[in-house]
């Protein structure tokens, strides 16, 4: 074999360097393109390199957040969560949460409800997950919410015994127990030695929000033309206290507020002639019934769920229903509302309250 000359080696070296540089630039451009699409959020990667044999591995996005301000991110997260079921229908899946850096309760509840649906349809073994190698805080949040135990079908221990921010679920059958959760929150988050009247005000706010919120879901979220058994009227709830605010998030996979508006009379006229999308319908249901006693027109006691914000010193309500989002803000008594249309439907309703703790 002919020995390569020094010139030849030098040429090869330069070529390799150029190729490597070209590859790096191209990879960087592709990465930038992906990030532009998702507003800086690392997208979910679908790979079989990690995970368990015989399962489709699905990496979570870096941010699981249903933010009001970013329609693209919201829709991206909704589509990612809803795609899990399609994947599970084909092959058992394995979610890798290791690149998760931020999440909110609303998206965790939506994910939990989707996981439950997957488990009911395809069996508990159809879905597994890992948090290994991930962000320490996110690992704590995911474990503390109980979602890891749920997905991996490990024993669901008592949520009052060690879970920081439990996601609890229930349905419309049986007697309600709002006291256990209320007392848990009071004992976990309120400092000792708080004055008795202040504790009473906080207790009243928490009990009122939890009981009104859950009753509304059970009574109205699943109402429709067909009769649904009470134990199929499911809801998921997460709650905590932080920074002087009480947070309560409720999720159901019912028909959604826009599909619940009456098919006759005023609402049908509005639907046909004025409002074209879910956001406008939700906004109308909320604002037109804000002063009405019989406000169950929207499938929810629309007045009741807004009253919690109106009666609070400050706070807000964020409501996702199908393809619409509605927001109500109370800034020291000044009430403002807004809404927009989502690009993807959540197929249900998520209501998130942030209420100032009374002093």
């Amino acid at each position, binding site marked *: 074999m002919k020995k390569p000359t020094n010139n030849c080696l030098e040429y090869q070296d330069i070529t390799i360097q150029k190729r490597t540089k070209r590859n790096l630039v191209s990879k960087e451009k592709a990465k930038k393109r992906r990030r532009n699409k998702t507003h800086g959020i690392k997208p979910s990667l679908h790979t079989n390199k990690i995970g368990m044999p015989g399962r489709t591995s699905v990496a979570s996005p870096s941010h699981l957040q249903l933010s009001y301000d970013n329609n693209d991110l919201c829709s991206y997260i909704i589509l990612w969560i809803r795609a899990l079921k399609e994947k599970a229908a084909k092959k058992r899946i394995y979610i890798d949460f290791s690149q998760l850096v931020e999440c909110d309760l609303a998206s965790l509840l939506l994910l939990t409800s989707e996981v439950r649906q997957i488990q009911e349809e395809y069996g508990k073994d159809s879905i597994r997950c890992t948090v290994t190698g991930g962000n320490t805080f996110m690992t704590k949040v995911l474990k503390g919410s109980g979602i890891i135990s749920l997905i991996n079908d490990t024993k669901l221990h008592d949520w009052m015994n060690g879970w920081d921010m439990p996601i609890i679920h229930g349905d419309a059958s049986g*007697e*309600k127990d*709002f*006291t256990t959760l*209320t007392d848990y929150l009071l004992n976990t988050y309120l400092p000792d030695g708080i004055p*008795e*009247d202040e504790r*009473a*005000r906080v*207790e*009243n706010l928490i*009990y*009122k929000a939890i*009981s*009104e919120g859950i*009753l509304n879901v059970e*009574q109205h979220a699943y109402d429709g033309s067909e009769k649904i058994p009470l134990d199929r009227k499911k809801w998921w709830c997460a709650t905590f206290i932080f920074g002087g605010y009480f947070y309560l998030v409720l999720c159901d996979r019912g028909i959604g507020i826009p599909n619940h508006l009456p098919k006759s009379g005023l609402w049908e006229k509005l639907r046909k002639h004025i409002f074209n999308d879910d956001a406008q319908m939700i906004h109308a249901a909320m604002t037109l019934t804000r002063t*009405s*006693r019989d406000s169950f027109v929207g499938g929810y*006691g629309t007045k*009741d769920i807004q*009253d919690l914000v109106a009666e609070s010193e400050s706070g807000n309500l964020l409501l996702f229903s199908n393809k619409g989002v509605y927001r109500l803000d109370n800034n020291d008594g000044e009430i403002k509302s807004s809404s927009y249309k989502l690009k993807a439907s959540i197929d249900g309703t998520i209501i998130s309250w942030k209420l100032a703790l009374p002093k």
Partner: protein
Amino acid sequence: MNTKDQNITIDVAKEFSDTPYGRFSADGPFSGERFRNELLIPALDKYELVHIELSGTNKYGSSFLDAAFSGLLDCGFTEEEMNRRISYKHDLLPSIPEAIHSYIKKYSKLKTDKK
């Protein structure tokens, strides 16, 4: 001639429930509708003045309070009569009697406007 006894106190926590919730009987065993029909209306039939002692618990939902008290407007009582004959007290939460008065006032106005 009015032969009603003078007054009575109903202690919600002791005589009904320390965790009342819901508007209608279908919502649960301790709803506002049930309190109104089983305790409040019989007391109003028998006594001239009814005092509602709310202090035994801090766990009150707005649906319960609304149905229990402003629901009386659907049972033949007027706002004026209710203000005269029913009194409310919560030692730690004055906002609860205030809320009850507000629900009654709002519903009374709504009924008047509808006429």
